[in-house]
């Protein structure tokens, strides 16, 4: 469980914190304020580390655990920052039967991170996604906006090398 939590140091700026506090001030008196606050906090920071959740806890009065419980319940929230290069491997049906699961596992091994995680240097993050509409190219992965198709596990080193 603990492996889903980021070990990358928090690098929030005072500007981001001001934005967050403004968002909290806007919603905190409303019932059910936690979801919009968390959604916008993630937009501001890209993820929801403990530092951000502690600010939300202190300002709203919700226990930190309750906030963490909501964050870990919904797939839309992330405890990890996105890397400079965001790798998404399609695990949709077509890609999966064409072996994208192996590609995903190979990336986990090569990058030394879990799915949803980010490398300690902040360079690569890895996540699984569902169909991106390129089934004809299955199996498919994307690195930021670049699409790579008809892959085998042997292609991975070359792809990663382009970004190193």
């Amino acid at each position: 469980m603990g492996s889903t939590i980021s070990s990358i140091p928090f690098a929030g700026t005072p500007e981001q914190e001001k934005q967050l506090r403004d968002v909290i001030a806007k919603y905190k008196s409303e019932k059910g304020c936690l979801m919009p606050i968390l959604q916008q906090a993630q937009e501001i920071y890209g993820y929801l580390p403990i530092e951000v959740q502690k600010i939300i806890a202190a300002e709203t009065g919700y226990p930190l655990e309750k906030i963490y419980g909501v964050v870990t319940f919904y797939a839309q929230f992330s405890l990890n920052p996105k890397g400079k290069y965001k790798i998404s491997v399609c695990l949709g049906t077509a890609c999966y039967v064409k072996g994208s699961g192996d590609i995903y596992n190979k990336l986990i091994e090569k990058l030394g991170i879990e799915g949803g995680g980010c490398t300690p240097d902040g360079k690569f993050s890895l996540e699984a996604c569902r169909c991106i509409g390129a089934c004809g190219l299955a199996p498919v992965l994307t690195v930021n906006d670049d699409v790579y198709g008809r892959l085998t596990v042997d292609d991975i080193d070359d792809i990663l090398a382009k970004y190193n």
Partner: protein
Amino acid sequence: MDMINVKVNGVEVSAPKGTTILQAARLANVDIPTLCYLKDINEIGACRICVVEADEGRGKRLVASCVYPISEGMQIFTNTPKVLESRKKTLQLILSTHEKKCTSCVRSENCELKKMAHDMGVDDECKYEGENISYELDFSAAHMIRDNNKCILCRRCVAVCNATQGVGVIGANERGFKTHISSAFELGLGETSCISCGQCIAVCPVGAITEKDDTAKVLDAIADESKFVIVQTAPAVRAALGEEFGYPMGTNVEGKMVAALRRIGFDKVFDTDFAADLTIMEEANELVERVTNGGVLPMITSCSPGWIKYCEHYFPEMTENLSSCKSPMQMFGATAKTYYAQKMGIDPKDMVVVAVMPCTAKKFEIGRDDENAAGVPDVDISITTRELARLIKRCGIKFTELADEKFDEPLGIGTGAAVIFGATGGVMEAALRTAVKMITGSEAGDINFTDVRGVKGIKEASYKVGDLDVKVAVASGTANAAELLKKVKNGEADYTFIEIMGCPGGCVNGGGQPQQPASVRNFEDIRAIRAKALYDQDAACEIRRSHENPAIKAVYDEFFEKPGSHKAHEILHTSYVKRGLY
């Protein structure tokens, strides 16, 4: 009141509007099993064990009886094959992810899941096998262990931590198969602002949350011939220990408890009541000093270590309001290792003080700073009422057959005022009995301060003591304490003296007390039943005021000189930490 008529298995029952099927069935003498449901604490209808078939004119449907309200003409069937099959299947599914180490499990004797599986005729606990997540145990807190492998996700612990205690350091995290109970960011409980109250342990139906068992340490100390091992028992222990040996709730087993402790092999069997009286002397004196010298008011009691930790985490700005008195358990240890050790010619390093407490936070308290008057910890080992029961059973003592025995002197002498420390309002009442004497010089006319008795979460009263108007308040359960303290902080109340106990109902309902299953907790008020045992003992006591305790008079004459003396401050008082939230 609108009455609604229903039939439970054909038997007519009439109950007020809003009554649940579960409650209505009880009126027809039918017991419906429940697992997640705890009255007023966890009413979420999640586990589906309590399903029954209900017909409201549209045919029979399976509904969760714990939260489903009755309606006019409803027909309820609690034992149809469909109901029983549903319960059995649910139990088997719960058992599929439950680590079934029943032989060694501390809850083996009173596991609610095990009993239910037995009652429901579950003949194959391994019917649904499959992948399971293996969880690491959390040993980080001073007082308890969390084992998610045994957790059945009923969420009783989460509810009591959030709603009753207002702490909320545990909750359900992630979702689906990965759902598990833990703290934010998977921190160990010891790294959070957990207050160690142990209410989660008291409500856990299985062995997923347990106190750290220190019984082996006790037996090792007793076996060590170089050690002089003494034991003290808190007032609330005698009101609940009997439950572990088949006595009805509310039976006071003081005499048998003392006899059993002697047979376990303690060199002296003493009573925390002695130190409760000592606490009253110091605390009443401190109150009088604060009132006359313009000290910080309201003064708040400091007997409950769960409450103290709560204050330090959640109201750090109010630690100045806390009485500087150590808790009775710590005062006992401090006095034993100074006054008594000196009197007996024993080196305090060779003395082991064991405390039997209704409390798990006491395990945290014994390791606090500034709790070592003789240069060694005031108290060495603190065990719960449950652990004492385990010790008695392990030592083969036939508890029910024992003849009553009396505590040893002098640290076993207590008064009625001390006995009621175990119930919410008891410390306040005991303090008032002595404060009246300290302030006016004469005894209180009526020493029964009944306004501060009872299980209500927050109680207020006002007394004229001499020329002084003393406004007091009593709260138990830390969510209630928070409500009270907010009033004080916002200037909405001007109390002189506040008593706060961390657990709802006070120590009688402490986190270290015998666990009562949901089938009892949902229909009886264990707080009131156990408290009655203490108030009855107080009423029957010859001496009911702390300042009249002959052993207390002696300890001041021979050692402490007077309440609040320099020596008393050195030995009997302590300091607090502003912890804040994690």
